[in-house]
């Protein structure tokens, strides 16, 4: 009993040691592997009087081996568990509403090629499991995500909705699954769980800007969740899990309707500020964030336009001497002076390069909120960089039997210098990869693939370099087509057509709104020869912003085509009712006649017939008997026997009934 206190003491000692040790370890760990969070916002004026806002949140977790087991400091536990449970190597989930306008908002920059997504939900994931378990993992993952994000992602579980690929869409081989739900409606119920993954939620920091009504009023809204984990593969450096959350919105600044003068040159871009487009101001950073920056990006085209404007001004008024690029630019005015300015380096695309202004919001608070405003002084017209080919997909033909899917490419007239830089070799080819999934009820005939280049039919072998097709199986799997096309560089327009038959669904496979039609998910068009990367000259590389380093990554130009709506034949869903009615009628007739036959006694009937023939009376019965004789096909014989009393009474009765009815009618008629 006496050594008990000693023991407790020693336990305490050990405990305190342990705590000490672990804190030391944690401190050491924090130097190398600490969970980090960063928040950034990129604002960009768009040529068609709109503003792009791109929120980028990145949370990283160190590998499991170096962290505290299952405990997380900043990283959302739900995501970490998901990664560990399903062995997700990489995953991307996007919820999108609206369409990205590739012509006006750009198709050749990192934002558009990684954040422009097809409408609805898109999910792809790479699993690090043996091949036979990939499908099971995918199904579990869809269910988990469905619960996590309040969306019907679980519909992707069925094998008719997701597909696998060999190559094309994503370079990873093996365990990749891809599925889309074009009809999924996206709203705040999906955004709230997404925001819950952030350490500050939407209570502080940049995410506090996300005022639901104003962001859902926009023209495009896409929330994206990208996950990479290197837990499970040994190659390379172990970087742990990187969770990248991006929200891209295109908003229309509230501009007073200007007097319409019908010449587009004199139209001034609408001025905006954070408070005018979001209805809120930034009241300080999220304290847990490592970096918390706001950027304002001016595109190459815009910079060129501003430079031209500056030149004009210099000619007219020499007192406006531009010094240090566009710091004192004449085109617009910023309400807050930027902390830093970056210029894009290594721009082989044009003469001028895009400009990035950085604002660090660490020094702003509730009392001094950050409200960046941009006021245009002179009208500027510019256009966005576009993908080498503008692609659009549409349906041809009418009727409920067959149709044709057509993908058409038109050249977007890239600057000559840009193309010639790529030409280099003699045989210049423009490569475009197409990845298309069609549901099974669209029975595509892949042998009918035809290619037209510049209005001339081409042999497929001339254009299609590589092709992988997995035809659809009824109610089993969708049809997948992956193509590598090589067009000549001088191509003006090209088109691909693929014929299909419309299939029939079983009655219980129709969705409740079957008469709306059925969706064909977007096709993905990739231009692997064209890389989007923006490299900004930064002063110190140690404090690198995650978003900018993301921009630096080389990724191929990627665009999505439109979702197509195919009207299929739909049954008349009130048909079961009709069928029931008709069946019942038939049954009634059948059973009626059957009973009639069964309970008929022929001898009895003849006797009754004889009796009735013997007593004939009245005019009406006479007529009836005449009619029945006709029906029987016999000569009618006048009755021999005189009328008996019973029939006389009956005719009298009928007469009485008639008289009463007549009186009633008469009375009714004249009483009104």
């Amino acid at each position, binding site marked *: 009993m006496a050594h008990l206190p000693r023991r407790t003491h020693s336990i305490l000692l050990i405990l305190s040691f342990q705590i000490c040790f672990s804190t030391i370890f944690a401190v050491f760990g924090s130097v190398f592997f600490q969970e980090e969070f960063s928040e950034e916002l990129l604002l960009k004026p768009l040529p*068609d009087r709109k503003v792009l806002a791109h929120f980028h949140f990145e949370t990283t977790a160190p590998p499991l081996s170096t962290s505290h087991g299952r405990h997380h400091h900043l990283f959302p536990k739900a995501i970490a568990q998901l990664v560990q449970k399903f062995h997700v190597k990489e995953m991307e989930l996007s919820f999108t*509403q*609206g*369409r990205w*306008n590739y012509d006006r908002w750009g198709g050749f920059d990192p934002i558009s090629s990684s954040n422009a997504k097809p*409408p*609805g939900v898109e999910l792809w994931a790479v699993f690090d499991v043996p091949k036979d378990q990939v499908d099971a993992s995918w199904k579990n993952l869809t269910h988990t995500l469905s619960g996590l994000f309040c969306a019907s992602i679980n519909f992707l579980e069925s094998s008719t909705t997701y597909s696998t690929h060999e190559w094309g869409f994503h370079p990873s081989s093996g365990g990749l699954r891809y599925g889309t739900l074009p009809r999924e409606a996206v709203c705040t119920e999906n955004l709230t769980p997404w925001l819950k993954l952030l350490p500050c939620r939407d209570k502080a920091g940049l995410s506090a800007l996300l005022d639901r009504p104003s962001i859902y*009023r*926009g*023209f*495009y*809204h896409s929330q994206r969740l990208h996950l990479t984990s290197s837990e499970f593969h040994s190659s390379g450096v172990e970087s742990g899990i990187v969770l990248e959350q991006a929200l891209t919105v295109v908003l229309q600044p509230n501009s007073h309707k200007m007097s*319409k003068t*019908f010449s*587009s040159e004199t139209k001034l871009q609408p001025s905006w500020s954070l408070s005018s487009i979001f209805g809120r101001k930034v009241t300080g950073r999220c304290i847990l964030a490592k970096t918390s920056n706001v950027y304002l990006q001016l595109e190459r085209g815009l910079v060129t336009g501003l430079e031209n404007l500056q030149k004009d001004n210099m000619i007219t008024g020499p007192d406006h001497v531009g010094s240090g690029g566009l710091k004192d630019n004449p085109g617009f005015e910023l309400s807050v002076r930027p902390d830093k300015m970056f210029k894009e380096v290594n721009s082989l695309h044009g003469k001028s390069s895009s400009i990035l202004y950085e604002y660090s919001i660490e020094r702003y608070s509730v009392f001094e909120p950050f409200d960046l405003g941009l006021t245009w002084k002179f009208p500027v017209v510019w256009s966005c960089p576009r993908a080498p080919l503008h692609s*659009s997909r*549409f349906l*041809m*033909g*009418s*009727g409920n039997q067959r149709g044709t899917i*057509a993908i*058409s490419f*038109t050249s977007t*007239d890239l600057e000559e210098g840009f193309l010639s830089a790529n030409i280099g070799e003699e045989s210049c080819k423009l490569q475009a990869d197409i990845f298309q999934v069609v549901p099974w009820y669209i029975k595509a005939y892949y042998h009918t693939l035809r290619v*037209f280049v510049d*209005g*001339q*039919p081409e042999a497929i072998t001339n254009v299609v370099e590589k092709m992988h097709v997995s035809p659809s199986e009824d109610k089993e799997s969708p049809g997948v087509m992956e193509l590598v096309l090589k067009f000549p560089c001088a191509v003006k*327009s090209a*088109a691909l*057509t693929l014929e299909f038959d419309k299939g029939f669904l079983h009655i219980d496979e129709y969705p409740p*709104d*079957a*008469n*709306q*039609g059925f*969706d064909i998910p977007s096709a993905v068009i990739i231009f692997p020869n064209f890389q989007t990367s923006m490299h900004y000259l930064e002063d110190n590389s140690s404090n690198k912003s995650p978003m900018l380093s993301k921009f630096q990554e080389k990724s191929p130009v990627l665009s999505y085509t*439109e*979702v*197509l*709506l*195919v*009207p299929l034949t*739909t049954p008349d869903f009130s048909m079961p009712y009709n069928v029931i009615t008709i069946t019942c009628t038939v049954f009634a007739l059948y059973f009626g006649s059957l009973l009639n036959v069964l309970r008929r006694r*022929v001898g009895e009937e*003849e006797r009754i*017939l*004889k009796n009735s*023939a013997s007593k004939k009376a009245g005019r009406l019965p006479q007529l009836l008997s005449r009619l029945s004789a*006709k*029906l*029987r*096909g*016999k000569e009618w*014989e006048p009755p*021999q026997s005189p009328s008996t009393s019973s029939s006389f009474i009956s005719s009298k009765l009928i007469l009485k009934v008639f008289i009463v009815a007549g009186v009633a*009618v008469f009375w*009714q*008629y004249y009483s009104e």
Partner: protein
Amino acid sequence: MGESESENEAPKVKLRPIVRLGMFLISHSHLLSVVCCTAGVLTLLLLPLLAKNTYISENALMPGSANPMLSSQEVSEANGLVKDLTSLDLKRMASGIESQRLIAQYMSNLGAEVSFQKFYPQSNQFHPLHFFSSPDSATIRENISCSSYGLNTVGIIRAPRGDGKEAIVLVTPYNSEKIGLGEALSLGIAYSVFSLLTRVTWLAKDIIWVVADSKYGEYAAVDAWLRDYYIPVFSGLGIQNAEMCHGLEENTIRERNMRDGFKRAGTMAAALVIKVADRSEQFEDSLSIYAEASNGQMPNLDLINIVNYLAVHRQGLRIKVEKMWSLLNCKWLKILGEILESLGHLAKNLNPQWKFGIPAADYVEGTATLTSSLYYQALGIPTGPHGAFRDYQVDAVTLEISSRVSSNNKGRQNDFLLRGGRLIEGVIRSVNNLLEKFHQSFFLYLLTSPTSLYAHANNLDPSFEKNESNHPASAADELGITLRSWKWLYAAKKVLVVHLWGAVVLLLPYFICQIPNCTPTTSFVVWVLLSIFSLLILFWILGSPFSYVYASQPQQREWALLKSVTISAAFIGLCLMSVINFATAEIGALLMVPMCLMAHPLKLDVKSRKLRNFSRVACNLALGFIGFPPTAFLVFKGVFEGFDGISVGDFWNWLESIWAWSSATYLYIGMIHLPCWILCIHVILHPC
């Protein structure tokens, strides 16, 4: 004795009731067919009475549930466009391109995507091989000259948050060479709606505004655009050609982009064609709805209902549906209407719940509308550019708005634009609400007034009664001769030969068209002569077996066989036609069924010299006269439009229009009606 006989025979003769009923009907086939025929005709006359009030069956449409957002601001902008267009027209120096450019400028200033679509006029030439399919676009471009092309201007608004799967189409046809005030106003209405829709937040479907260049006809322009939308040709033979003769200096890259790209937007949910009538109304602003597409196809009734509801209850426009105006002054129709009215009153007095009486004036009006509806459906020619949409299964109507006074008054014009624009806005908003395609309501119906219809579903009964009446008659005729002897086969052969001849007659106009400088009358005469000639040749070639039959079997029942086979053929033909175009079958049955049933050799009737026989002869002659398609056409035309200035050439013109639109009515006349008429005449003139 009688008793004993019945005792002996009753067990044997006792047949099943159904069989007995059948035999009874057969033995009274004459009475039955007369009853059925009159019942059919009577039901047709009663249709205005039986018509039901329409209702909007798709709940999602919710017409008029939102306040119109179109304000005077859009209207004043639209007024600017109207003024610019009319001043362009006044200047006269401007070619067609100028007006398109102006419209495109206006559209792109609203932020819409604009593109031009060039098309070449398509000659309405009858080609027998392309009757059912539209001619190959490659063959169209045989001889195009640079100057002769139309240019459609297409503006598209993308729904801000929509997924772009569906689109609503607005069409305003206008003649780019000479813009009338009505056309300018219709453009103004469409523009005001368009400019509103660029700003609204509720848009779920894209909006396509097609400004169709009606230089070569409204239908042709819309059809050309739709063909490019649905069946584009990638292997462009015409592209180089078109490039060579641009004739237009391309100012900016933007304009070239407009010209190159054919812009699209999803599956079309509905289309509205907006027109403003140049004539002005006396009393109030009114709206005419045209809905008939090719072969009597109608748009979903819900679409007409929304337009009707919004026009009457929201904008206070008077709705007009096409009527046979001459029927309004018909004496006998008025009397019939009065009789029906008094009958209705009587019935109402007996039982207040029996409400089938309508005022006589309403009855006459309903009948006039019904007749016109029936006629235009039967004709199978679309009554406006909306017909082009129906070929691609898109519901479409043409709305023709006419104003009260000629709109020189500025305030009046603004009001007119505002009302028209609000109507279109409401319709678009309703269609925009719709998640699924139109599928709830009727699509087979006859309109008796804008607010009531007669659905074919119920309407099938009377005509089938009429058709049914054929069967007993034919069966009765066949009963006399035993079916087992294959004698009817010869009659069937003859009927077949005559129908073949009908097909030949159908093809003849193609060759007659090749004759240059032909007036309609001469071509008609040539056609008739050629038809008779071909009939004679056919009989000469194939007729020999018949002559053999005549010689070997001098039977007087031959005509009865022929009549029964004719009736069967007519029955099959009418049944087929009622599937394709119900109205044609209905009118055809009115003419053909009595004729086929009454046919009886004249010789027999004349021989027997009874009053009944003479009346039959008279009936036969009258029916034979009215049954011949040209005379039927001319008689009806004379009755409705007056007899002065009628020539046989009119029939040729009428027929030409029918085949140019490749209407099934043309086939019906040639393949069913004409052969049956010939056979009936053959029966009437049979040498017994």
